[in-house]
């Protein structure tokens, strides 16, 4: 394979990894805990801005052609850690507004409005993160450190993305297979019954929002270090629906479903159409992407609402010999096949 093709494919793999992390974060919030987080892209954007401001040098170092706060020039992995932390912290005010008191459609509307407000705010504040133009020249970790070719640097970044994916997998899988995950699924089904059993549903929802937000923030940090630029146009509210579509297509409540959704929707549809032979007026293919994504979402909600990999039933096996009352025989956390 020519190095150009390899460069392209490794780039796709990096974007896939970044999207997988984000979608696992959304799955914790929406798939597991049932929060209609239509402000999801704000969590990713917060992480991206955090990583950018932590990694950039002060604005004066670039001749002050952009204006922003911070510019701490911190080394790897601090910008990524900061991105995850900020993604989690942003969940607190958003949770207080939209999760404590609101449910269902109202929650979704409030989230969507929060997302619009956040974009408007970032555009209007020119001194904060360079207003509508956004930030540029964000350095990649280890850039130039090993004197590698562009393709070599790409492989290094892919390795870093894989490590972050492994961390995200470990967190998301740990939660979904634990009693905490079971409680989050219970909150999704009936909040009143959860509180009647002595658990605080608000605290549980908040936990899911914060951890999912941290994963979203981490994905944003990786994304900004990969693409080296970030502005309000990178995180308009339709991006949230890209993640939701991926989760609906792949399947909620399980990590394989989220990963498959990431492969099919953000990579398959959005990136896959990027190199189609152009037709029509410029920008037509990009617009058609959104039409296709919307149609895919509708088709799945209509014909296969649980996605390609539905959430699997957690089956616990007991011996059926009545003589051994109550004794679990070969109890395991094994999950049975999809019904």
């Amino acid at each position, binding site marked *: 394979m020519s190095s150009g093709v390899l460069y392209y494919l490794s780039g796709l793999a990096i974007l896939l990894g970044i999207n997988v992390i984000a979608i696992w974060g959304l799955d914790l919030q929406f798939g597991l805990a049932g929060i209609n987080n239509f402000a999801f892209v704000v969590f990713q954007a917060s992480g991206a801005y955090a990583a950018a401001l932590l990694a950039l040098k002060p604005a004066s170092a670039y001749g002050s052609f952009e204006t922003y706060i911070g510019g701490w020039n911190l080394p790897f992995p601090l910008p990524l850690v900061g991105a995850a932390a900020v993604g989690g912290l942003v969940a607190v005010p958003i949770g207080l507004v939209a999760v404590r008191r609101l449910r269902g459609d109202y929650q979704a509307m409030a989230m969507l409005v929060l997302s619009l407000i956040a974009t408007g705010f970032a555009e209007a504040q020119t001194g904060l993160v360079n207003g509508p133009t956004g930030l540029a020249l964000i350095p990649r970790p280890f850039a130039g450190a090993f004197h590698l070719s562009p393709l070599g640097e790409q492989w290094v970044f892919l390795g870093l993305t894989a490590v972050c994916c492994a961390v995200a997998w470990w967190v998301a899988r*740990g939660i979904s297979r634990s009693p*905490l995950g079971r409680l989050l*699924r219970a909150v999704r089904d009936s909040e009143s*019954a959860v509180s009647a*059993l002595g658990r605080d549903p608000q605290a549980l929802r908040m936990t899911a929002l914060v951890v999912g937000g941290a994963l979203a923030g981490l994905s944003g940090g990786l994304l900004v270090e990969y693409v080296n630029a970030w502005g309000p146009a990178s995180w308009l509210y339709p991006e949230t629906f890209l993640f939701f579509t991926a989760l609906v297509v792949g399947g909620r409540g399980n990590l394989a479903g989220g990963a498959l959704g990431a492969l099919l929707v953000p990579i398959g549809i959005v990136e896959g159409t990027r190199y189609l032979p152009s037709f029509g007026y410029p920008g037509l293919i990009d617009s058609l992407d959104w039409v296709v994504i919307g149609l895919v979402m509708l088709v799945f909600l209509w014909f296969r609402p649980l996605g390609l990999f539905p959430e699997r039933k957690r089956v*616990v096996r007991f011996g059926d010999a009545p003589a051994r009352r109550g004794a679990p025989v070969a109890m395991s956390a094994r999950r049975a096949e999809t019904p």
Partner: protein
Amino acid sequence: MSARAVPAATARDDPGGAAGGPLLEVEGLAVHFGGVQAVSDATFTVRSGTITGLIGPNGAGKSTVINLVSGRTRPSRGAVRFAGVDLTGRPTHEIARAGLVRTFQHANVFARLTVLENLLVGASPWRGERLVQAIWRKSSWRGAEAELAGRAYALLQRFGLEGLANEYAGALSGGQKRLVEVMRALMASPRMLLLDEPMAGVNPSLAMSIADRLEELRDEGVTMLMVEHELRLVERLCDPVVVMARGRVLAEGSMEELQRNKDVLDAYLGGDGA
């Protein structure tokens, strides 16, 4: 999770005094929704070890009283004391942690959890429900989890539902869902159950089997306050019975006494002694 823990009262430790003493004291409870005075003066006591009935015509305020006691609705006046502790206006989850666990008038199971998982959500002690335990310290809850699953399975056998352990709770019949709710509440080792029409919409033979189980539980020391419309069941299970009408408590006593009480007959029983 809230730091203001309410001391838990279970059947094992007994701060509420000897069996037969007052466990739940409801005093002058009132609430209105807009201009509607749903409950204007509810005062009664549930003694430990009893199944106390709560009856009354539609709109009498029975379910509202359950909601007020369980913390779902905040009272505008009055007090709720459980095992000597004032729980007035506390949130539902704190009241449940104190040992007062409710079920719902409309079957309220976790539909997309299996029956066994439904029971495990109710289970105490709680292990692996904190983030750090869930991710880092799996060994801290794996053992307890297996033990709780065994306890849940034993309970399912007792209620004759062990064959449904791995079915989604949403796929069960209405009566089976009610059983799941009662079992789930029992997994929490409550001191007292608040049962809001546990037999509503259940076929008569299953209702009898639920009644048998409730009697067994009472004999094991679980106190219950039960809203029920089916008076034959109330007569069989409940002593004493509290009668409510138009938001206030009208009378309290055994069914036999109530059937001779003129106010009760006028308000509710219709005078024919049914």
